């Protein structure tokens, strides 16, 4: 369970931003997470109250946008959706693809009360 460690990293960043912007409280935290990031959204949500307790983000809403897996084919150069453990081109069947989206673990935006 490394999601607690991930949450603690998020909180450190958010606290820093709150100081820079002289925020009184963090209102919402928006993340983008893809299945190939290795971070589970549900576990992140469960860990968040523990990591945020007593911080400026204590009452923040954690919003997570799930990103789908898409690949671009090195052979036929078309794009397709794929399963996380089968990054195969759905047009020509090649495994020689490149991940376009699906490994995001991004702190996208935060809203704060100033």
């Amino acid at each position, binding site marked *: 369970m490394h999601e607690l*460690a*991930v949450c603690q*990293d998020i909180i450190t960043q958010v606290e820093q931003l709150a100081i820079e912007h002289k925020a009184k409280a963090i209102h919402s935290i928006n993340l983008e997470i893809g299945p190939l990031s290795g971070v589970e959204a549900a576990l992140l949500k469960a860990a968040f109250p523990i990591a945020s307790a007593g911080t400026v983000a204590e009452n923040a809403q954690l919003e997570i946008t799930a990103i789908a897996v898409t690949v671009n084919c090195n052979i036929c150069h078309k794009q397709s959706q794929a399963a996380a453990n089968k990054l195969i081109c759905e047009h020509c069947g090649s495994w020689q693809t490149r991940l376009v*989206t699906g490994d995001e*673990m991004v702190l996208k935006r935060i809203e704060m009360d*100033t």
Partner: protein
Amino acid sequence: MCETCGCNITPGNKDTESGKAAVEVLHSLLHENDHQAAHNRQHFDQHQTLAINLMSSPGSGKTALLEHTIDKLGDQLNIAVIEGDLETENDANRIRDKGAPAVQITTGSACHLDAHMVHDGLHQLELDGVDILFIENVGNLVCPASFDLGHHKNVTLLSSTEGDDKPSKYPVMFRAADLMLITKADLLEVLDDFDTDKATENFRQLAKQDPVLTVSSKKGSGMDEWINWLKSSLTDYREKLAAGKTQQPAIQSDGAAMHSHDHAHHSHGHAHVHSHES
């Protein structure tokens, strides 16, 4: 401006009326870790030490591989080890018995190493003259894959006793591998349910073109290929250093990609920075 690395955060649309401000951040969730990892990488690069992160399930043979590797390569190259595996407490002693310096890092109950732990370990280790530093990660096929330690290559071990479907079950871990190493090859003949071709195919289905090698630390089979991979990785790495570059594992998390030496990528957001060559 991000205070630590100077990367760009858009100033935010401040709505003074309501007293609310929104800030677009576009940072990795592991921003703090990634900064420490970049710092560790500088340590390694100053000493021209190739750092290799070994990951696997518990008991897949990481320490046994290191013992055998030191036996075979120890008189040609200087090898050192950072031990982070909790499974067997005497892993560091097993390495020292082979004549290589080893630091045991205390991970507490952590299920993965992070860049800060490795940094602490580095300060107990003399890197001068070390050609290859192995970092033996915690035996776990999930968590270690998400944390950049500042290393240059990932090696993921898959032992023949585990099942050839592991790459499909743990795609994040196996996608991170610059080399998949099938271990305990001596047991393949008695295990009828592990097919190395099937394991390789499951690995390829993760869009992995990287090499797959099969070794036995017990019988020594496949060791020459493994040693060759290490030597050519070291040569490649030092050529990159000579050209003023560094190296990162081929597939890195979004965050690590964002914090590659080229900070300019920040302005494009994350969509363009997947698995680019560094």
